[in-house]
């Protein structure tokens, strides 16, 4: 079977990103767009745009039947789900399987397996991949027994959660029973699944993830790791590869762990295995797996020269895994800054509206993935990501220098953005040194606030 026409069930920069690879491959791209996105850049670039519903995601981008009907209606051979929305809903993959539409991603069963965080944890253990000390607990008594064994501080995590959602930190064992009850009730309300599990809380942890691509038959290659420790409320802001300051041996072990887990799952398509690197113990633990293309995939593309979307399409098209591990080389350092329509001066409140002026940086080793042009609207219904500025250079200092230059060239007017804030983070000596943990950004914000207060008083 040859994929000739792809329905893109997404919006924004990732829709543009997928359309570009479709163009390169000579595949027609049909965009499924909400009413709010009919004038968007991807709608202008696509070979055809079909309007799937009103702006609110629940009435458009999250409707499985409408998306599949749209694919059948325009006679698309395949659906690319991008990230977010329906990308990790087993329902979309399953209906595609039933209707004979190729889903560009893993199987429904694989999405289910990694979506259940406890099952994913069990798969990791079975694959010999280290997990943080912990496990499933059904009631407060079990939680106390396990809690004592691990020792506080602890994290109660919802089985249906992930990406920072559905977690509760417990510092004292006596608080555990009450916290357990509340966590289970909250998980039930948020995810329709009251199951929770317990894990050691890692005080100083770095978020390091490994990009993998699998053929669905048990062969997997990795494309190296990404460090995404600069986060605010679990939202990544800056990502880089390679992860600074890790030894070659540590790096090799973490890559191997990701491959072991996904080989065991006979994982198909592109995916990311997230690890928590325990700075104090020089250890890493499996966190979760993301069964989709990741926002930050371009930094991996920059250092490997692999078009990850093209590989996803090739695998979905039955062409198999064209990459061999020995042929994948990672060259230099790449950094990504997420440019969001949010206002750092007002607690990062989203700032939708119309972008009057958008000037993006360019030049050697600079890539900008965006759907924003001068006059583009930022609807209030969706996430605030405006653009990803990606730089690539020989080493980290050179890449940082280039990113500062790129951000200085960036001009976005009409909506508030975090461009200047990103530039401040890059210039911070602690970040410049490399290897910050996930607690870094909150502390940076605290320091920044005090400095501003001092200067306001002075």
């Amino acid at each position, binding site marked *: 079977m040859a994929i000739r026409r792809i329905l893109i069930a997404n919006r924004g920069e990732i829709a543009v990103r997928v359309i570009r690879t479709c163009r390169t491959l000579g595949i027609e791209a049909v965009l499924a767009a909400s009413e709010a996105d009919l004038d968007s850049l991807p709608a202008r670039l696509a070979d055809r745009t079909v309007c799937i519903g009103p702006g609110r995601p629940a009435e458009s981008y999250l409707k499985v039947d409408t998306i599949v009907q749209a694919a059948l209606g325009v006679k698309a*051979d395949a659906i690319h789900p991008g990230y977010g929305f329906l990308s990790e809903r087993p329902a979309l993959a399953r209906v595609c399987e039933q209707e004979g539409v190729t889903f560009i991603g893993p199987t429904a069963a694989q999405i289910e397996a990694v979506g259940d965080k406890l099952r994913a944890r069990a798969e990791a253990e079975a694959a010999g991949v280290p997990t943080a000390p912990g496990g499933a607990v059904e009631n407060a008594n079990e939680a106390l027994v396990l809690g004592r064994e691990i020792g506080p501080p602890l994290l109660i995590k919802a089985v249906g959660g992930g990406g920072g959602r559905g977690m509760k930190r417990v510092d004292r064992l006596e608080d555990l029973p009450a916290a357990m009850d509340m966590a289970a009730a909250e998980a039930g309300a948020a995810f329709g699944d009251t199951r929770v599990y317990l894990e050691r809380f890692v005080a100083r942890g770095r978020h390091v993830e490994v990009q993998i691509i699998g053929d669905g038959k048990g062969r997997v290659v990795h494309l190296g790791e990404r460090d995404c420790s600069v986060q605010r409320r679990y939202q990544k802001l800056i990502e880089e590869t390679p992860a600074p300051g890790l030894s070659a041996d540590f790096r090799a072990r973490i890559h191997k762990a990701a491959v072991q887990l996904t080989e065991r799952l006979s994982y198909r398509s592109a995916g990311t295995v997230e690890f928590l690197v325990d700075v104090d113990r020089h250890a890493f633990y499996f966190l979760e797996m993301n069964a989709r293309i990741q926002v930050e995939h371009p930094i991996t593309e920059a250092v490997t020269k692999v078009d990850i979307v093209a590989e996803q399409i090739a695998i979905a098209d039955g062409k198999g895994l064209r990459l061999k591990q020995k042929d994948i080389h990672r060259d230099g350092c790449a950094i990504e800054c997420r440019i969001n329509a949010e206002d750092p001066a007002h607690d990062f409140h989203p700032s939708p509206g119309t972008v009057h002026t958008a000037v993006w940086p360019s030049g050697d080793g600079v890539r900008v993935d965006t759907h924003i042009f001068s006059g583009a609207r930022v609807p209030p219904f969706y996430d605030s990501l405006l653009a990803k500025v990606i730089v690539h250079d020989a080493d980290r200092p050179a890449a940082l220098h280039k990113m500062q230059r790129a951000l200085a060239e960036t001009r976005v007017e009409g909506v508030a953005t975090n461009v200047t804030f990103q530039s401040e983070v890059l210039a911070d000596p602690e970040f410049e040194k490399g290897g910050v943990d996930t607690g870094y950004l909150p502390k940076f914000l605290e320091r920044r606030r005090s400095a501003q207060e001092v200067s306001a008083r002075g």
Partner: protein
Amino acid sequence: MTLSAKDVQEIMRLLESSSFDSLSLEMNGVKLHLQRGSAAAPARQPLAQPSAPLSQSAPESQPQAVNSAVNKIKPASEPGLADVSSPLLGTFYRAPKPGEPPFVEIGAKVEEDTVIGIIEVMKLMNSVRAGVKGVVAQILAENGDLVEYSETLMRVRPGA
């Protein structure tokens, strides 16, 4: 010699009575590809082939040319006409069942709650109501069309 619609029908009958599953014919720059049954994955053809006029003979194997949504040509609305737009994306049917007369024709009187068509989304049938009282003036969506959300299906001249 060129192929007429009658020739194609004759060829289709021949294929149906034969033991072959598909037939490809190329003559005088015209390409005809017929395939038995609609469940089999159809061979995708590039867009806008010279064979386009024949595509109605083998609708399952010929994807329609991809047009930009913004280029969709619809008759301009006359002043005073009210649009009946599609409440959702799906396949539009003008009649309750194949072979039955359409819900409405041009000139039909409609009330706000008169059903003017059906939109199928993954085998789920949704009735579309006129939403306005008056007389059907234009019918824009064809039977079996993929209609998009808020696409104009018909136009009604409002009145008592």
